[in-house]
């Protein structure tokens, strides 16, 4: 078990290193780095200062080591549009993105688990159809558009909820739901199909043959096994989450990391984008690490196959 976790941590570090390297290569390949890291209309002086700061006169591998060293010290440079350190911007905006993600995740789980399980148990019943329709719509609806439609309905027409911005708990409902629905769609289908596979298995027949009530057969013997493949696929779900959050934050003017990424593209603020990519990438890798360890805890078999 420990060996396995150690190996996974090593793998995660490798992934982090790779992303950092990629960002470095990108920053050095899309034009004069000094220009990339300075504001659009800054003069020759500003560029020269930046060139010195980045050590552009040094060999590439020294620049690279310096870059890595700054990363380890969490120094991501300063924003070129307002001079604030990127780390500070990210730290300020992170909580908004996280809380929104959490709300969306709760939405997604609260709907997808029961719908997926019931859909598999009562195949082709009304609830299975509802689950299917919700899933297909969620998978097919562009989140920026469904978000806008929800704003029209709930904020403009019925005036029940705030249309945008981060305020009280009511401001979480629309963006949370918009982001959660897309994620929920994939999960419902995954839970359902994996539950169906498990329900066909011998050990479920054995559980019934012991005389266990159906609720115990499903809740105890089937569900835990059905969730394993769902966990495996959660990395894909997570990807959908991140893509979605950039878009949803934009639609609802949510003061999170995604919004700042889009803004910095408009302002041509490379250091901020670089920071956001590194943060999102690390976050993704850490979550995957966590999921794998969780998997090992739920599935006793994993401990013996490193």
């Amino acid at each position: 078990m420990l060996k396995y976790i150690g190996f996974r941590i090593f793998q995660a570090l490798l992934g982090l290193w790779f992303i950092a390297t990629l960002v470095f290569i990108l920053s050095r390949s899309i034009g004069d780095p000094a220009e990339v890291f300075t504001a659009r209309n800054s003069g020759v002086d500003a560029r020269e200062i930046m060139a010195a700061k980045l050590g552009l006169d040094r060999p590439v591998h020294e620049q690279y080591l310096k870059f890595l060293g700054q990363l380890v010290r969490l120094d991501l440079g300063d924003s070129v549009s307002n001079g604030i350190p990127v780390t500070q911007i990210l730290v300020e905006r992170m909580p908004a993105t996280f809380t929104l993600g959490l709300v969306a995740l709760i939405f997604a789980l609260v709907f997808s688990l029961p719908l997926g399980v019931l859909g598999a148990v009562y195949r082709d019943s009304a609830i299975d159809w509802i689950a299917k329709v919700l899933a297909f719509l969620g998978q097919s609806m562009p989140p920026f558009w469904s978000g806008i439609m929800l704003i029209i309905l709930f904020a403009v027409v019925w005036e029940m909820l705030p249309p945008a911005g981060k305020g009280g708990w009511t401001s979480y409902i629309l963006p949370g739901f918009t982001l959660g629905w897309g994620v929920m769609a994939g999960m419902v289908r995954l839970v359902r199909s994996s539950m169906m596979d498990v329900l066909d298995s011998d050990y479920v027949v054995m559980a019934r043959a012991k005389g266990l009530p159906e609720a115990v057969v499903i809740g105890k013997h089937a569900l835990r096994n059905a969730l394993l493949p769902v966990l495996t696929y959660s990395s894909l779900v997570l990807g959908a989450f991140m893509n979605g959050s950039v878009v949803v934050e934009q639609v609802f003017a949510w003061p999170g990391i995604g919004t700042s990424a889009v803004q910095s593209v408009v302002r041509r603020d490379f250091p901020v984008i670089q920071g956001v990519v590194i943060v999102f990438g690390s976050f993704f890798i850490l979550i995957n690490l966590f999921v794998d360890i969780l998997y090992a805890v739920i599935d006793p078999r994993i401990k013996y196959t490193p």
Partner: protein
Amino acid sequence: MANRLLEVEGLAKHFRGGGNWLTSGGDAIRAVDGVSFHVEAGETFALVGESGCGKTTVAKMILLLERPTRGSISFQGQDVSGFRGGGLREYKRMVQAVFQDPYSSLNPRMQVLDIIGEPLRVHQGLRGRTLRMRVGELLENVGLNPVTASFFPHQFSGGQRQRIAIARALALRPQLIVLDEPVSGLDVSIRAQILNLLVDLQRDLGLSYLLISHDLAIVEHMSHRVGVMYVGKMVELATRDEFYGNTLHPYSNALLASVPKPDPDIPMGTTIGGEVASPINPPSGCRFHTRCPIYLETSMCREVEPDWREILSEHLTACHKVEPAVV
């Protein structure tokens, strides 16, 4: 030596267990650990043993699907590992295989014509009408209608699929066919059809078979000589009559006694306890000593690996407790 078609000498295969490209990996699995036997022209040699004894790995090495860790395989007196180019092609022509699962051994996306025709195309470059004719002949040889050449595997039953697999193996007029559990994937009522077909083909075409099986009744029915394996080692080798009439090794005895006799009046023999030992960390000395019914607490069996000795003429075994009758 003239009639020794295939000769296997001290063959061994160790797999790296567990681990991945970062960790160095666990203990080696000694799947096959020094096995010697030969197959004569026109005979059936059977390799018998329980799961994990290494009999399938031996077959894979002969078929060049696995590379031996040690030992040699020679075909018609020539070392197989030295084959390159033309020699290798010739070997691949002369040695064919039929596997256990008739569903997995035929490509579901290919017509029977292409399945049976593949060896003919690869080796003889047959095309069009000649190919069609030859495949039709082969289908008839195995008792199928030549019309079925345009069908896909899913249109056949298990027994018919196994016939197709046999036809494919016959296509290049090979000398040796490796039969890896050829009927254990089939229904009982179909097995006799395939076994009879195999016996007839051997008689008519002078084929040699290397039969891999765990079913001692089928082995007795099919084979001329028998080798028994236990945890990567050969423990006994004899002609069929000698093996079934005068079993020497206690493991072979246990195997024979374990088969339930289809006669209510013959009671079940005394069987052995314990589990089949693991090839990852095989027992010291004689690998069978942990389950052996005649093992007395002597250090000999526990510590010294028994020699592979000829006890009677053409009857070899590896057991400390068996005294040789010939010198």
